[in-house]
């Protein structure tokens, strides 16, 4: 299991390959989140961020067969079309891999301490949390 909160970009292909090296694994589901057409800065709470992601992954492991998993979330300055976040889950079968991957993303959105500040023509503004994200996380309860 790998959890990384980093400034640097990541290579999804390399990360997927790294968790596929086991003949019992039949499925790897992955997700990549991208910056839309804005410049932004991502702030986080060092220490708590890693801890929160570990808890989310632990919860996913208790619900589905997760044989390996990688979560990478970037912080700092990001440009349009940059990669922000990736989740990859390796499992025996696709159902568990898909569900665990989506669950981890939904919980990341509401539980991991990251905040986006967008640079717009009118100046910088903090992005407000969406109730749709809370609803997405709640449906797993």
């Amino acid at each position, binding site marked *: 299991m790998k959890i990384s909160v980093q400034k640097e970009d990541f290579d999804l292909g390399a990360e997927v390959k790294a968790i596929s090296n086991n003949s019992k694994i039949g499925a790897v589901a992955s997700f990549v*989140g991208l910056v839309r057409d804005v410049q932004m800065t*991502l*702030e*986080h*709470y060092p*220490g*708590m961020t890693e*801890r*929160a992601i570990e808890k989310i992954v632990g919860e996913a492991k208790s619900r589905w067969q997760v044989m390996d998993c990688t979560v990478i*979330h970037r912080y700092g300055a990001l440009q349009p079309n940059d990669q*922000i*976040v990736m989740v990859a889950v390796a499992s025996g079968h696709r159902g568990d891999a898909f569900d665990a991957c989506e669950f981890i*993303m939904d919980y*990341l*959105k*509401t*539980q*991991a*301490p*990251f*905040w*986006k*500040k967008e640079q717009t023509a009118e100046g910088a503004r*903090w*992005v*407000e*949390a969406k109730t749709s*994200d809370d609803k997405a996380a709640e449906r797993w309860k």
Partner: protein
Amino acid sequence: MKVKVLYFASLREKIGKDAEEIELPVGAATVAALRSHLRGRGGAYENSFSEKILLRAAVNQDMVPPTAAVKAGDEVAFFPPVTGG
């Protein structure tokens, strides 16, 4: 008792600092009580910690509800709802 309080994102900007030590009065032993103590400091604190503002809190780096206990030496963080991912 003393606790370390951290602020993040828009809250950090409104308060004008990212961390401080707070001496809590006897009886203020929950996150809600600490929040109310901070609101009572007036100025930027009064607006930032107003009951109308939606804030989340963490004690020792775990997200907690307002009823959570706070004890001497704890690291208590306040921040707006998160927007990562």
